[in-house]
């Protein structure tokens, strides 16, 4: 038998750290390969991390709620020596590979964080290329652990870690730029003995809400890891991006008539519900194609125009907001979108999105109208350039101009509200996009052909 460290796998390109959720196995438990070991939450996705080997869980290194970097040791397992050798060999092979992509080890996703995120593209590739995975101690040519994460450690940090057997890759730095300070190592040393024996306390401190507490007493809720991720993401967006807003009224009467008239036929032909979301996604994807500046992001003082239109859809999931992504949405017709949206939204609501579902978004569509809202000021899904909401469709008396003179008619009206990054987009570009979007939506008539 041999003891090996279990590393937190790399989950998704731009993700550098994750929060440890509930441990599904406890020290001493026998573990089969692929058994769910622990819940792992990132700002992109939360998933159950499967055991990479068969054996016994020996110790939990990263406690629930800990934020740990990718590649850090989160647990120790006792495995037979053949497995240990194989693991060591594999790690050596990986050490020489340019970049580890362990996304393949994920078996299923659970609930999802707030953002579909976007590719960091070149910056990210660079980051990956620079990352040197775990080196085997025997290999001279491979840099030592102190360099594995591209970080340097002060003399005292190196010495304390070595003397106390602390793997610095597992220590979260609180110093400047994430530097690991002496205090961080001391905290890790202090935490070490307490994590070794099986913690008997309840692992998930669910919000304790006393039903019949004294009237008027404040209650403190512990935010879930996902709630915290959403909070961080919103703060980041609002603090980094100068938001500006634009609202446009859209006459949806033709579209509503089209949907009502053709819904049944559409279902028979395409086996999918003809939703308003399919129409709005279709329209917004085309508007984005015509207004590439809106489909971009501010990166290192430059503007990156995205090559693809990957449309994120904000969905209210039980655990909080999630944004699954329809990749290349501009290449789909109404039928294709309807067919892709339904299962995606279903996965979002049931908490079973996989990583690929939430990655690579370039713009976000938020269908707030389903909640009855008629006007909104959404927070941009950082680092995208803009987010648009489609508000409730309401029947309103509207003045219609015709050659015979003005008349008042009852029309199905909807507001579309854009929040945009004013570093990239000015009012003129925002309006151009909104007019494109509006034109696409107002083009539908009762007998339009649905492709």
């Amino acid at each position, binding site marked *: 038998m041999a003891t090996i460290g279990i590393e937190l796998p790399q989950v998704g390109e731009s993700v550098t750290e994750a929060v440890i959720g509930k441990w599904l196995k406890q020290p001493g438990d026998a573990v089969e390969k692929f058994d769910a070991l622990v819940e792992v939450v990132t700002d992109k996705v939360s998933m159950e991390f499967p055991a990479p080997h068969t054996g016994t869980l020996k110790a939990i290194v990263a406690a629930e709620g800990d934020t740990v970097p990718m590649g850090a040791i989160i647990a120790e397992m006792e495995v037979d020596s053949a497995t240990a050798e194989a693991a060591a060999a594999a790690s050596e092979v990986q050490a020489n590979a340019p970049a580890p992509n362990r996304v393949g080890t994920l078996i299923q996703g659970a609930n999802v964080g707030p953002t579909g995120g976007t590719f960091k593209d070149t910056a990210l590739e660079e980051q990956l290329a620079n990352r040197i995975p775990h080196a085997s101690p025997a290999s001279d040519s491979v840099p030592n652990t102190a360099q594995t994460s591209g970080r340097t450690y*002060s*003399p*005292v*940090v190196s*010495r304390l870690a070595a003397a106390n057997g602390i793997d610095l890759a597992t220590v979260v730095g609180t*110093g*400047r730029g994430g*530097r690991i*300070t*002496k205090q961080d190592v001391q905290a890790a040393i202090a935490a070490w003995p307490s994590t070794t024996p099986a913690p008997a306390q309840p692992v998930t401190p669910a919000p304790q809400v006393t039903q019949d507490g004294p009237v008027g007493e404040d209650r403190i809720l512990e935010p879930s890891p996902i709630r915290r991720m959403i909070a961080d993401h919103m703060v980041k967006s609002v603090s980094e991006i100068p938001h500006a807003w634009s609202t446009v009224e859209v006459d949806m009467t033709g579209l509503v008539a089209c949907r009502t008239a053709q819904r049944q036929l559409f279902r028979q032909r395409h086996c999918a519900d003809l939703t308003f979301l399919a129409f709005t996604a279709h329209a917004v994807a085309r508007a984005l194609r015509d207004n590439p500046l809106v489909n971009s992001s501010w990166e290192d003082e430059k503007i990156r125009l995205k090559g693809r239109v990957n449309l994120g859809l904000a969905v209210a999931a039980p655990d909080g907001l999630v944004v699954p992504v329809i990749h290349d949405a501009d290449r789909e017709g109404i039928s294709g979108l309807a067919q892709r949206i339904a299962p995606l939204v279903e996965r979002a609501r049931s908490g079973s999105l996989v990583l690929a579902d939430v990655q690579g978004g370039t713009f976000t569509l938020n269908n707030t109208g389903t909640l009855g809202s008629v006007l909104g000021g959404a927070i941009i899904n950082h680092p995208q350039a803009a987010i648009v909401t489609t508000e409730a469709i309401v029947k309103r008396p509207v003045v219609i101009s015709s050659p015979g003179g003005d008349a008042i008619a009852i029309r199905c009206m909807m507001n579309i509200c854009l929040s945009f990054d004013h570093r990239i987009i000015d009012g003129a570009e925002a309006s151009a996009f909104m007019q494109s979007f509006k034109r696409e939506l107002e083009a539908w008539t009762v007998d339009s052909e649905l492709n």
Partner: protein
Amino acid sequence: MAEMTVIEAVREALREEMERDPTVFAMGEDIGARGGVFLATEGLLEQFGPERVIDTPLAEAAIGGIALGAAVNGMRPVAEIEFGDFVWPAVNQIIGEAARVRYGTQGRRTAPLVLRVPYGGGVRGGLFHSQSIEVAFSHQPGLKVVAPATPYDAKGLLKSAIRDDDPVIFFEHKRTYRLVKGDVPDGDYTIPIGKADVKRTGSDLTVVSYGLVLHYCLEAAATLAEEGIDVEVIDLRTLRPLDTDTVLESVRKTSKAMVVHEDTKAGGIGGEIAAVIAEEAFEDLDAPVKRVAGPEVPAMPFSPLLEAEFMPSAEKIAVAMRELAGY
């Protein structure tokens, strides 16, 4: 226990030592009839007479030479250099001669003289009455260099300096003379030369200082305490020999160190302290050693605005402390 200023503590120490030991005498420019330009020797002429309280010509070379000659012949002179800026003519007598007496005579002779040197800025003294010159003497083996910051330390250390058998350069910061007040015990006491004092204990970072700016360090440390940063402040008190043990012990505890002095940075005491830390406590460091010091200009500017810019302040020190604490 009495509260007094630094200047009163210096005067008390002088008076008590002259009462205790008839070989002790004071000399310097205007120290007799005028009581000294800062009134450090006020009243001494009346008490001890012109033979033991000697007004000298404006000739620092002579002051240094006479003190040296008296010292090797069994007296204990306490010579005052009116302003540190004017010490240079006496450097040959002090560094060139006095520092070598014990060494050159294989211990058969010693030179138990004290050179009191008011120094430092923040007093609107301009280019010729504000210099920090302590580093020139603390570089020299054979000398002892003392720079107290409080009345208690000033009195105890001046007594030790007078009783010491080797030449002691006793630096008194002019701005502390009447600015800094503190309790001084009644009666005789001494403070050993070569022993630093931890003026404030803390766990997050070590700040080493001396003289006037030590008080600014303490002020900054109090500000940072409100922000949850626990600063240890060490008063060197003696610049030669340096109490490296106290500094190293503190740095081993906090792992972060900073030196603050009014003197300019390059080649200053701060560099020496940083080097000692790097040599002896490298394995305990969690951050580069930081120095806060005066700018590299030839002398204290005359303009009050520029003088304020020159001087380290509690605000400037607090900024540096925060930076180091957050590293």
